[in-house]
């Protein structure tokens, strides 16, 4: 109790120094929380951008299909799989697809691209296809309707209502097949690759055109909890995976995201370490200043019988108090800033495409519990570690020498 009382009162002996040291620790805490929030927000956008745009959080397909998007590798009898998906409670939605490379021609131009046969309603619940519509109508039961990426439409010099011819080889017999469609809508996802290469037609029309019967090339999945997609013990995966059928979560589908996640967590660690290192040096400096300022007093305390451990403990406790005050000030500030920026976003100065994902004009930091539990604990621990050396110094002072030096 005496130790706590002394430490607390000592903290406020030099208010300016305590304020400045707290400011240093508080700023470090606020910066690291904001930075983590921004990184989480950016990762959320990037992961969401990749998984929700078209890829899905997981995919089911015939083994080998994704290696070259070979359209001859398709799920011939997908009904049993669809039955399993219909009964699964972890899923939010799924989208069956036919995916065939084709030549897409207008009256003015011809381009190579990828034709996606999709179920309009199921696709809308799984990907952002419906939200990506910027002009015209979304897919319906009309058999000749086609959605086209904005950049592809520009290259083919066509617009809503214009005719498009899809030319590809039939899946089973490699015979040339052609279909005439009309552009019913223009879509824009953001990433260039999607907007200049993909067209979307109704799945029934695609199955008929490419002679697939009921066959599917892939089924994109969306989970209630997107982390489920990467669980190695996911029951759904074990029910579906077979000799020729693969089930892959988004991390396996996009190993680049995994590397990016790892890289960002490392960069948070490095920036956090550097930030806290500088803060710790500031704390060490402030504590040493306070020790030198009361060297005489500490020497007298020691002379009258205060044990070295008590003196060392006092210094550590003062550092703990500093950290505690800093956290109590820093946490509400960080919370307010995070809440504000989570609502209004931080301006990025225009759209930025990063790893195939478009970050909009603003970045929205993401609040997470660990920022308000883990980071304050780090601040407290690092301050305590920073206090060890000055505490040992104070505990080891020789009364006779210090009394002489201080006078």
């Amino acid at each position, binding site marked *: 109790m*005496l130790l706590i009382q*002394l430490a607390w*009162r*000592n903290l406020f002996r030099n208010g300016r120094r305590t304020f400045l040291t707290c400011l240093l620790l508080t700023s470090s805490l606020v910066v690291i929380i904001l930075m983590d929030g921004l990184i989480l927000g950016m990762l959320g956008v990037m992961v969401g951008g990749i998984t929700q745009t078209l890829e899905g959080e997981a995919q089911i397909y015939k083994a080998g299909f994704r290696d070259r998007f070979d359209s001859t590798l398709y799920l011939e009898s997908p009904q049993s799989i669809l039955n399993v998906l219909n009964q699964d409670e972890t899923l939010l939605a799924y989208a069956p697809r036919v995916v065939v490379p084709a030549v897409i021609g207008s009256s003015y131009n011809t381009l190579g691209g990828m034709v996606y046969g999709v179920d309009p309603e199921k696709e809308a619940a799984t990907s952002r296809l419906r939200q990506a519509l910027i002009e015209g109508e979304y897919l319906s039961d009309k058999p000749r309707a086609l959605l086209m990426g904005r950049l592809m439409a520009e290259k083919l010099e066509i617009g809503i209502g214009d005719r498009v011819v899809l030319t590809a080889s039939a899946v089973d017999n490699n015979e040339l097949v052609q279909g005439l469609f009309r552009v019913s809508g223009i879509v824009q996802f953001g990433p260039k690759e999607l907007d200049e290469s993909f067209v979307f037609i109704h799945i029934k029309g695609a199955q008929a055109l490419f002679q697939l019967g009921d066959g599917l090339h892939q089924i994109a999945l969306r989970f209630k909890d997107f982390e489920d997609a990467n669980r190695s013990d996911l029951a759904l995966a074990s029910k579906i995976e077979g000799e020729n059928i693969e089930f892959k979560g988004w991390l396996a589908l996009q190993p680049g995201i995994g590397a990016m996640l790892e890289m960002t967590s490392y960069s948070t660690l490095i920036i956090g370490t550097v930030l806290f290192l500088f803060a710790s040096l500031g704390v060490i400096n402030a504590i040493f200043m306070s020790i030198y300022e009361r060297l005489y007093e500490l020497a*007298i305390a020691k*002379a009258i*019988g*205060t044990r070295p451990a008590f003196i060392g403990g006092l210094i550590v406790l003062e550092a703990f108090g500093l950290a505690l005050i800093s956290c109590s000030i820093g946490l509400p500030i960080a919370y307010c800033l995070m809440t504000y920026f989570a609502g209004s976003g931080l301006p990025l100065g225009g759209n930025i495409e990063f790893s195939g994902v478009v970050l909009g004009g603003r970045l929205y930091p993401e609040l997470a519990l660990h920022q308000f539990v883990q980071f304050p604990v780090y601040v407290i621990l690092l301050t305590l570690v920073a206090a060890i050396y000055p505490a040992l110094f104070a505990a080891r002072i020789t009364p006779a020498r210090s009394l002489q030096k201080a006078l």
Partner: protein
Amino acid sequence: MSIVIEAQNLKRCYGSGVTLVAAVNDVSFSIEQGEFTAIIGPSGSGKSTLLNLIGGLDQPDAGRVLLQGQDIATMTGNAISDFRRDHIGFIFQAYNLIPVLSAHENIEYIMLLQGVPTLNRQARVLEMLELVGLSGLGHRRPSELSGGQQQRVAVARAMASQPDIILADEPTANLDSKTGAGLLDLMRDLNAAHGLTFLFSTHDQMIMERAQRLVHIKDGILEQDETR
């Protein structure tokens, strides 16, 4: 009378090589229970160094200090801290008190270190404050007390732990003559009434006048031991 302190062939040097100076050189003397003794000498004669050695604040290069028969020169760490806490009371020139604690808390501090139970502690603090004439001022911080009052609190704190001896290093150096005389009279009264042993290091004439015994030091050597 029993011997409280016995200094045997104490030696303490500073510097090295050609700059080596013996601040205390082969000093031996003893102090009996209830003595009011002053170590006197000019500035730089080694009297404060001698007091530090006797109080266990510094370690001798040679010789030993026996306090109640125990050699404190060999004690280190917690052992010497605990010994000082329980057996020696200190009064220094100035800034004796912990500034963030009140007079009451400063006196209580040493008893807290000793683990004295709360009730006994509180009673003893009040008793000490009364003894040094500061009843009613216990709540004041050192900055709210005059220099003389601060030194009285230091005396009360030194006595609170019920030590065998009180060591005072130039306790009147920062006081005006009237306040200094008042403080010395108080210590002299405590010595007479309670049989407390006092050992001063000083060149203050007022202390010399009141001391029963004067130990003269010059250039680190005990020149004269004069009992009145």
